[in-house]
């Protein structure tokens, strides 16, 4: 009996999804195929990191689950898009979630982890994020950290003003590419920075929302087919709000092809928005023209987040224009028209390359910056500093001026980083202890960077995620000792001093990346946390208490030397005052506080995502 020679394990599993959502039908190549990193799947689908559980809480029932390993499904590259088949919904949710996860793992150079669930919720499969594609009847979809799950709702479209949907038609939020990417991003960010869900200042909740929108929007620009179409129909100006009509019509268009359409690339969750009677996408990447005052008076998390999103897209489109100017100039000297849906197809292809490449760069820049953000209480200005530092670490020379464009866009939106004299690149870089005028601490001894070197670590043939865990265990001890010995330099307050607290260590696995100059960049990032109980109102003994947190993100190089300390000192009274102030503002706005004035306001994604 001859045994089959083993087949090569494929890298990808192609799966069909809607590029936007069902409302766009087949136009603009709305059907696309996502190449999901290959993994063995059981029914659900249940993979290594995500599990689709099709339980309907409202109707208290389960729906038949898809078996993506079935040969009939495999041969077709997954099920074809169908609104009426729940199994396609499961496939789409799985595919988009995996794709979003892949982008993070690619940009950060390591495996992502979900928030560690509390002991109470410790289930057998605690390393998976659960996705409920038809969780309940509600015009809402949200990530719920305590259940470590994302719930997607379904609802009936508005009867009177349903946009391009049928009146009363059932709308599935789980079929919106944007909504899936947005919610999964919440879960990923929550895994990297679990304390960002605490409402500590106006920027933090807005940052969560903005980041989720940024990821969802930049994913649009990596869809080649859709970008290609858009470029052709906007004469290369893919940031325009409308697409030109397909044929030139009279002043009053008589057929659909003569009408201009909204540009789906720059809008988020179009079907959802229209079904709610909003006539437009839920949110748009195109904010109002740059206004440096808006940031001072906008506090609703989505609206404030939109300022950050607008700044980044401003930078993106500026870089795209810079990169494509020469192409358009060449085309024009040849007499080729660049207007009105007639862009030459070769030219459109080249522009499309620039657009998608830039989008990927921008997304990677944003994601990498996440590691350079403080462990708690993030602000937009700090995100800017994180972007600049992370990017100049990896890409020292910046010929297209990405960083300059980003800085300019932030400046125009009035986003001011604290403790920085000016908007120059050097000033924005995070500092090392010696930059801050302190003595340089000795290198941290005993850090393990190499996941391959020590075979003794690899007791079993486990996957990389387990290596990460083992390494974390080893590094944990070294980092803790180091923090205790060098607390002050690391922006921490030692437990024994006044205002100090126990130091908690959250090690991340080491990062190996290759910069565009071919250098291998090895970093190790650790978060140190401290917390203390404080009363909301220091003069009132009955006032509720909250955990006041501080800490720092410390970035080590391959020799264990401290490169940057990104600190939020627990011993800074201004921070505490600001936080108290913010909490009381929050309760002033919250409707619930009238009836429950002694409860702290927390961020609830469920309440926040309600109808946008």
């Amino acid at each position, binding site marked *: 009996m001859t045994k089959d020679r083993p087949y090569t394990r494929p890298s990808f599993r192609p799966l069909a999804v809607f590029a936007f959502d069902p409302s766009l039908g087949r136009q603009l190549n709305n059907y696309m195929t996502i190449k999901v990193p290959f993994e063995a799947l059981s029914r659900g689908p249940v993979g290594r990191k995500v599990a689709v559980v099709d339980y309907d809480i409202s109707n208290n029932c389960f729906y038949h689950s898809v078996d993506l390993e079935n040969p009939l499904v495999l041969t077709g590259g997954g099920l074809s898009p169908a609104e009426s088949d729940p199994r396609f919904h499961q496939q789409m949710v799985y595919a988009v979630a995996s794709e979003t996860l892949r982008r993070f793992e690619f940009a950060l150079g390591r495996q992502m982890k979900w928030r560690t669930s509390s002991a109470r919720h410790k289930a057998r499969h605690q390393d998976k994020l659960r996705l409920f594609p038809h969780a309940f009847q509600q015009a809402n979809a949200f990530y*719920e950290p305590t259940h470590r799950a994302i719930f997607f709702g379904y*609802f009936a479209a508005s009867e009177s003003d349903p946009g391009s949907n049928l009146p009363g038609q059932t709308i599935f939020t789980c079929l919106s590419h944007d909504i899936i990417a947005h919610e999964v991003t919440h879960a990923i960010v929550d895994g990297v920075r679990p304390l960002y869900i605490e409402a500590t200042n106006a920027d933090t909740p807005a940052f969560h929302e903005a980041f989720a929108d940024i990821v969802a929007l930049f994913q649009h620009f990596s869809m080649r087919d859709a970008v290609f179409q858009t470029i052709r129909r906007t004469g290369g100006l893919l940031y325009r709000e409308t697409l030109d009509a397909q044929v030139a019509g009279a002043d009053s268009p008589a057929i659909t092809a003569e009408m201009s359409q909204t540009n789906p690339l720059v809008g988020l969750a179009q079907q959802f928005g229209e079904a709610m009677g909003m006539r437009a996408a839920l949110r748009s990447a195109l904010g109002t023209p740059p206004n440096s005052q808006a940031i001072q008076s906008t506090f609703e998390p989505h609206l404030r987040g939109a300022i950050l999103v607008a700044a980044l897209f401003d930078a993106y489109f500026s870089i795209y224009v810079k990169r494509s100017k020469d192409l358009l100039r060449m085309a024009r000297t040849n007499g080729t028209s660049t207007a009105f849906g007639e862009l030459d197809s070769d030219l459109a292809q080249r522009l499309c390359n620039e657009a998608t490449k830039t989008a990927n760069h921008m997304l990677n820049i944003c994601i990498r910056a996440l590691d350079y953000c403080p462990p708690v209480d993030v602000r937009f200005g700090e995100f800017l500093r994180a972007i600049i530092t992370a990017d100049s670490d990896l890409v020292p020379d910046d010929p297209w001026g990405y960083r300059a464009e980003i800085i300019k866009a932030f400046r125009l939106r009035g986003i001011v980083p604290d403790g920085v004299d000016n908007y120059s690149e050097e000033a924005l870089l995070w500092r090392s202890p010696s930059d801050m005028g302190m003595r340089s601490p000795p290198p941290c001894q005993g850090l393990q960077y190499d996941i391959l070197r020590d075979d003794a670590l690899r007791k079993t043939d486990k996957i990389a995620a387990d290596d990460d865990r083992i390494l974390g265990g080893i590094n944990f001890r070294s980092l803790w000792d180091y923090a205790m010995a060098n607390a002050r330099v690391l922006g921490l307050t030692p437990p024994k001093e006044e205002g100090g607290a126990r130091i908690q260590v959250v090690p991340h696995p080491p990062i190996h990346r290759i910069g565009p100059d071919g250098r291998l960049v090895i970093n190790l990032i650790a978060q140190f946390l401290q917390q203390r109980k404080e009363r909301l109102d220091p003069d009132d003994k009955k006032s509720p208490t909250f955990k006041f947190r501080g800490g720092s993100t410390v970035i080590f190089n391959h020799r264990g030397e401290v490169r940057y300390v990104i600190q939020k000192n627990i011993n800074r009274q201004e921070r505490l005052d600001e936080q108290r102030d913010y909490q009381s503002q929050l309760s002033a706005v919250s409707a619930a506080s009238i009836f429950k004035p002694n409860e702290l306001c927390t961020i609830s994604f469920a309440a926040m995502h309600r109808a946008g």
Partner: protein
Amino acid sequence: MVRPSRKESVHRNPQQKKRTKQKPDYLSSCSIRIRMYRVGFGDCFLLSFGDVASNGGTCSHLLIDCGVHTQGDLHTLPRILENIKQESKGFLSLVIATHAHRDHISGFDPSLNGFSGIRVSEVWLPWIENLNDPTARKLVRKRTALAEALEQHIRAAGISGPAVGIVQNALGNEAALGALRNGLNGARVRYLKAGASFLDTTEIKGLSVQILAPPTDQHFLSVMNPPVGDRFLRVGRTGKAVAANPIAPFPDHWITDQQLPEMPLKAAERKKLAKMLNSGEDLAFTLDSVLNNTSIVSLMSYQGKNLLFPGDAQYGNWKSWIATPEGESILGSLHFLKVAHHGSHNATPRSALERTSEKAFVAMISTQDTPWPSIPYEKMLAALRKKAKSVVRSDSIPVEGAERIPRDRRFAATTGFELGPFWCDYFL
């Protein structure tokens, strides 16, 4: 010469002297009387302008709200309506219904017959109640649908707590609203939005009124738009909770009992998820704020005195005008403030209090701690007491059969106040 005559005068008419209390001196300089009735949980204010000292017929009268919540009703409303008729001698120049909550408009319900003998010249309502305005109509319809669905949901799901009272307050106001929209007895009806202003308002010479809220901008509208696509429960025919507006997203043949072997959902977790979904409380809170924020906020000026009546305006409503330079000057020059929303937690923003002038104004609060123990918010009241000249709570007015708040929280009668059997007057 002097002594006997004095004696004489004392003896001449001792009984009359006792019966009609001598009018205090300050009264001669007063031209406004604000009468706060004690209804229980609700609002009812009668304003009189003119020669308020003489008790004569030269005053013009204006009524702001007249209603009480079903929970926390002291049953004084019939007597109040009678008193309004008497005081106004059957003529009100203006009736303002700040917003469509029961505790502000239940007195206008035609079944109470309170306004049948009163001629009203004008009725003011917030623009959101104008059924001829397509936007307003849509919002009213949505709001009513949500309140009704919530009411059934709360009953079916057996929810208790603050949500119950909230929903009661929002429902059953159609008759009263209808009467107001018809101008009570044929009065002219105006639907007001921020920016409107009147001089010699409704022919009261010298009374100017400025409307600060509700606004009409897009942001306000989006906040006004509560979600309604949710699944609600109602009590079915068998007495069990059933879905009121169910969607079955897929035909039955897609439903299975088979769980994923890899990812089972235990019954306990399913229960927890259902609970998370059905609380309805957040929606009730939202609904409440939405309606409160439709409140007409009116600033009245009469003979150099400025009075602010913000209805039940909460943070969102204040925010729309407070940050403007105009808002700043208004609060700085205030003589009287009706405390918004019965003194609740977020109805008097700290930033608003900061803008008022120290000890320059008097505040009145119509409130009590039933049905919601969290209203009024004592901390806010403490801050207010520090800032205002004096603060009067309606639940410190003695009314037969009703509890009074403890002595230490009652107002210390200062100049300008007079207590009646179920009201408190302030003269300025």
